[in-house]
């Protein structure tokens, strides 16, 4: 059974049809979703943890229509890290603790920061005052604090310089070794997809067929 399946899915955003009749299966492990800007890669991720619903069609998670699941429980199991950091005011540790509390878990702040390749020294720093690269890794740590089984990463390095990108990639590679965690990475960078993912799925331009690339 695939991790996610999209069946005849049409998605509309801001009044524009982003994709139509999309059929797609994503398996466990690390999958990269690639495609040029504007084909709806971010929209696709939003459908997977129901930040948005499709106009038509069914999105399945482990065989279940996502609309039949408790949406809050689904999001704690399928955590999405958006393209740009959007942390809450407060310290790094506050942000991590907040996410854990939402999921009813006891936070291991130091361990979670280490998982996201962040120094423990940052724990008490104001989260929104960190560099964008550090904030993006706090977003990762925060998502991990909910104890997810799937991590959805939307262009996790798009806003970063080369050094920060390498660090985030290393973080994701480290996480991909965990057997209990699947990762779906959206990226426009085919080389990054090859570096990080076990399989690569291309979202086609509207009207074209879907290709599984490797």
């Amino acid at each position, binding site marked *: 059974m695939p991790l996610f399946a999209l069946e005849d899915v049409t998605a509309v955003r801001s009044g524009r049809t982003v994709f139509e009749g999309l059929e797609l299966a994503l398996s466990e492990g690390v999958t990269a979703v690639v495609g040029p800007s504007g084909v709806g890669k971010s929209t696709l991720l939003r459908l997977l943890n*129901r930040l948005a619903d499709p106009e038509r069609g069914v999105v399945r998670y482990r065989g279940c229509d996502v609309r039949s699941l408790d949406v*809050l429980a689904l999001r*704690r199991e399928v955590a999405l890290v*958006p393209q740009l950091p*959007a942390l*809450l*005011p407060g310290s790094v540790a506050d942000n991590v603790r907040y996410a854990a509390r*939402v999921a009813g878990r006891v936070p291991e702040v130091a361990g979670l920061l280490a998982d996201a390749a962040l120094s423990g020294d940052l724990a008490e720093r104001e989260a929104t005052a960190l560099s964008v690269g550090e904030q993006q890794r706090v*977003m990762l740590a925060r*998502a991990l604090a909910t104890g997810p089984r799937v991590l959805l990463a939307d262009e996790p390095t798009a806003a970063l310089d080369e050094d920060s990108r390498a660090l985030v990639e290393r973080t994701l590679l480290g996480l991909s070794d965990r057997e209990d965690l699947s990762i779906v990475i959206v990226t426009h960078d085919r080389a990054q997809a090859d570096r990080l993912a076990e399989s690569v799925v291309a979202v086609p331009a509207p009207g074209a067929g879907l290709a599984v690339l490797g």
Partner: protein
Amino acid sequence: MSSVHVSLGEVAASLALTALAVVVSAGQRARLEDDIVVAAARAFVQLSAVGYVIKVVFEQDRLTFVVALLIAMTLVGALTARRRAAGVPGAFLPLFIALGLAAAATLGLVVALGVFAAEPRYLVPVGGMVIGNAMTAAAVALNRLGDDVRADAPRIEATLALGAPAREALRPVMRRSLRSGLIPLIDSTKTTGLVFFPGTMVGMLLAGAAPVDAVRLQLVLLYVLLGAVALATLAAVTLAQRAFTTPAHQLRELPLTK
């Protein structure tokens, strides 16, 4: 309390100072002359009309007339506030409920405490005062709510993405909008008597009441007003925030400006 009689001639004479405002505007080329004239004319027409309506309500001395008048005030208040809250979809109903709730709670309390008798002479002006203040505060709060939900959309969605319920994800913007609605009244309550004399006290002093009575009644109204306005703002914000999210805890797509 002795009553004060003001003739139409005296009202007309007071227009001399309004004429001064027109002269100032024209002299400074502030281009507010038309607005000042319209404002003065509207005040005359609206207050005169309301005066006659209140006269009928007082003469009839029936609670149904009072309730009907207060509902009409709530309706106008909600419609007026809705214009300021254009960034909040479907703001009218939350505002109408919030203003109605504030008026009902306040009047119920002052009557229950025995501050006023349940008579039109007391219920109409106090109700009008509560609805007016609640309208201003709720409008400011919802205006801020609409702006902040748009500005904070990425953070709200990131919080929803963690599995937080919509109410929880919106809490920071709700808190800010509540504060922005309440702070003006709290500040004016702090400076009352120092920087300005509130209306009830001014009215009572002009009408010849003893200063101590005027002060005590004003205090009752200020305290009641704080509670009523807090209640109205909380109700408006709590009800209005539901328009921004779906039952599946998703942030609705919003037009950037309205």
